[in-house]
């Protein structure tokens, strides 16, 4: 606890506020949920204080400054009575799949589903605690420590061996900003057995005009020969902010197909951490950023090849306008002896305005020799020749630009495995880029 004094004066008030809220949070819980969980929360808080809030001096946060965001004085969201809300909100997402609502961090599980609440799971079975933090340990990671310190509820999704779960699960994070700015911590666990599959959609919505910050950690295990399709839809208004950490481990021949669509919100930082832990595992990561205004979108990916014969592929694209900032940091680690690894990564960016900024840092750390790893990254504006070509075919500059940008974006939206969702996202993007006005 003595480490508080070493914090710089700038972050002290924010950190102090969080420490104070943590104490109140523990008081409110009043020893519910058992001693072990209480200890875990305290340890995590200690670690969070030791590490402090990451500053731009921190290599992993070099281009993303948390302080302007945290200066919004988010207070910890409290439990709200969501009984009436559940149906109306769920109804909006029913055509995507099976909605499960998380209101201010508390899960309202749909009846008869693979989705259960973490709170209940912990109450029923203390041994469940040992699962927590296996993939997302709070040691050394301030954000996970912050999440663990305030850990209360979230979804537990378990799909048994041989189950191909057909209906996509839509996890809707609903944040109540009607009484000012709030921060919500969510912790989700996902377990896929052998030869099973699941499609999971994560989406964020808010109530009221307050600024809301979703701080979400997901730990997912994908068993042998199983497939996880994960879709992260970030299309909320600018009052919505998100810091997400998705740690996923793939067993032998397991597959991950992840698409992140970041086209709305204020401050977004996504940190997928994929660990290829069984031979033959394959991870495909796709991301699209369309940012305008003062929006900041940071995709901070880690793909860890821990064993031989795994493949990974990443493609992240961004279109930046206004005063927006795009950040991409793609780390690929190939551990010693992870031979025959194939890892590809590409990052393509289009900058439309003078005041938009893109910072990109592909990063390869390779400790094995028999590997094929490549990464490529480009930054530029729209191809003048392509624009000219379309102009000669009678399109206005605006139309031509919209057409080219839509085509650029569709390479990513095309990877969304749900037809309904893909069509909706494409329509939204066309609207954003002004392509829907075209004849």
């Amino acid at each position, binding site marked *: 606890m003595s480490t508080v004094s070493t914090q710089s004066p700038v972050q002290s008030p924010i950190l102090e506020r969080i420490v104070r809220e943590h104490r109140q949070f523990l008081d409110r819980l009043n020893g519910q949920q058992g001693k072990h969980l209480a200890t875990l929360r305290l340890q995590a808080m200690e670690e969070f204080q030791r590490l402090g809030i990451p500053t731009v001096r921190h290599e992993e946060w070099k281009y993303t400054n948390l302080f302007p965001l945290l200066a919004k004085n988010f207070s910890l969201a409290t439990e709200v009575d969501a009984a009436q809300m559940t149906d109306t909100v769920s109804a909006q997402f029913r055509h995507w799949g099976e909605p499960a609502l998380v209101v201010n961090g508390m899960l309202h599980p749909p009846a008869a589903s693979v989705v259960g609440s973490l709170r209940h799971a912990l109450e029923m079975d203390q041994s469940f605690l040992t699962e927590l933090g296996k993939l997302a340990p709070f040691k050394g990671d301030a954000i996970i420590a912050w999440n663990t310190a305030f850990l209360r509820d979230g979804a537990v999704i378990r799909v048994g061996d041989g189950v191909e779960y057909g209906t996509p699960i839509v996890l809707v994070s609903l944040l109540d900003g009607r009484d000012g700015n709030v921060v919500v911590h969510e912790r989700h666990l996902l377990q896929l057995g052998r030869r099973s599959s699941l499609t999971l959609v994560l989406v964020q919505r808010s109530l009221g005009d307050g600024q809301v910050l979703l701080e979400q950690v997901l730990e997912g295990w994908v068993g042998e020969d199983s497939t996880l399709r994960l879709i992260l839809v970030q299309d909320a208004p600018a009052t919505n902010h998100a810091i997400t950490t998705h740690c996923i481990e793939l067993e032998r021949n397991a597959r991950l197909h992840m698409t992140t669509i970041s086209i709305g919100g204020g401050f977004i930082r996504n940190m997928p951490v994929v660990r290829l832990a069984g031979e033959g595992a394959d991870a495909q990561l796709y991301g699209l950023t369309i940012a305008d205004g003062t929006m900041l979108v940071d995709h901070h990916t880690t793909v860890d090849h821990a064993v031989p014969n795994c493949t990974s592929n990443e493609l992240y694209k961004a279109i930046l306008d206004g005063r927006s900032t795009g950040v991409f940091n793609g780390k690929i680690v190939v551990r010693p002896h992870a031979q025959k690894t194939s890892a590809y990564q590409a990052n393509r960016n289009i*900058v439309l305005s003078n005041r938009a900024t893109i910072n990109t840092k592909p990063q*390869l750390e390779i400790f094995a*020799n028999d590997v094929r790893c490549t990464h490529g*990254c480009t*930054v530029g504006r729209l191809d003048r020749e392509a624009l000219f070509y379309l102009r000669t075919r009678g399109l206005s500059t605006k139309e031509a630009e919209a057409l080219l940008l839509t085509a650029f974006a569709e390479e990513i939206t095309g990877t969304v495995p749900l037809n309904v969702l893909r069509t909706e996202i494409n329509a939204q993007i066309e609207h954003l880029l002004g392509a829907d006005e075209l004849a």
Partner: protein
Amino acid sequence: MRAVNEYNEHVDILEHITSEDYQYKYGFESQIEEEVVPPGLDESIIRTISAKKGEPEWMLQWRLDAFRAWQYMKEPHWANVRYEPIDYQAISYYAAPKRAAQPRSLEEVDPELRRTFEKLGIPLHEQEILAGVAVDAVLDSVSVATTFREKLQSLGIIFCSMSEAIREYPDLVRRYLGTVVPPNDNFFAALNSAVFSDGSFCYVPPGVRCPIELSTYFRINARNTGQFERTLIIADEGAYVSYLEGCTAPMRDENQLHAAVVELIALKDAEIKYSTVQNWYPGDKEGRGGIYNFVTKRGICLGENSKISWTQVETGSAITWKYPSVILKGDNSVGEFYSVAVTNHRQQADTGTKMTHVGRNTRSRIVSKGISAGYSQNSYRGLVRVNPSAENARNFSQCDSLLIGDQCGAHTFPYIEVNNPTAIVEHEATTSKIGEDILFYCNQRGIDTETAVALIINGYAREVLSKLPMEFAVEAQKLLAISLEGSVG
């Protein structure tokens, strides 16, 4: 068996030479006793150094300012290298002219070293100079150097040691020294600014094209310039100069820490080409000893249409930590960086470049080829920054890594920061190994594995080697092959 013993013995000698005690011991036994200051660093030491060199007051103040800044700085640890902490108070900061323990003839020189010389095809008398043999041959090189100096003088080119420049051309030095790498730029640059012993100074007047490749080799007092070298090269309007640093032959050196600073300034329409072949003692096969090379190299394209080009072949040093950079300030200026970095055994290299685009229509090109073998770690770390003012900036970067053996590591950390929509920045990187099928193909045609590897490596590094001046390029090719000897098969 005898050969093995002999080899071990020589390894011991080398170890001994590079160890700290050695420095200490011979520092005091040196015949020119008054030229050595005791280990440690404080203001009085800096005053002593400055006084010994007969420097003017402004230079002393400049050093002291740098020292005061250094005291508040922390040694950086972000690079991807590991080493034992350095005790800055245990180093003797002025020991330049010592001539301790020179072998009397080539017979006494490490046979390993001599074998390398033979492979490089270095003439006998040059071998003696390089191995530090105290022979009269040095006199020959003095006369050679004098001839070159006269030629340069007739063109108005100033090429001399830094100490001489401070005495003879104080206006030029004062105007440019520290303008590219400010004394408080980073920890090692500040240390260098406070205690630098000597280095090269070069000024090429407007419109003059320097007819020869300038090299420290031609400067009379080039030998033993010490561990804190300071180089300043200025190309005035429309001038051209090509500068060679280092040498393909293994350099024997007593100092473990090297923190040099190189500053290049290119005015309007000027061009500077700076080539380095660095082959300092990398330590033994277990990574003991070896030189720490922590260098700050930076050039600025100050005027329009100017060009700075860095070419480096890095095969030596236990730890290399350097990022030759270019600030592209003038409109239409061009920055280039070509690098081959080879690490073997336990060597560690964290090297790359920074291209900062400030002016309009500025262009930069980065080609980096890393080769890691044995247990070594080789990192490329680069920054391409396009400032809002840099309209139509263009960058192309390529960094490839080649891995030989399954115990080494290759890492890339390219940072790209773009603040202007008209910029076009491209970056690509690949990592691969020498294909067994290629080796097999060569073997099949009667080329042994070692030669085949050399062949493949040279093809891989060709793009960079072709940028080196002719005579350097041939030696560098052989050097690559030698550095990787025994790493395959």
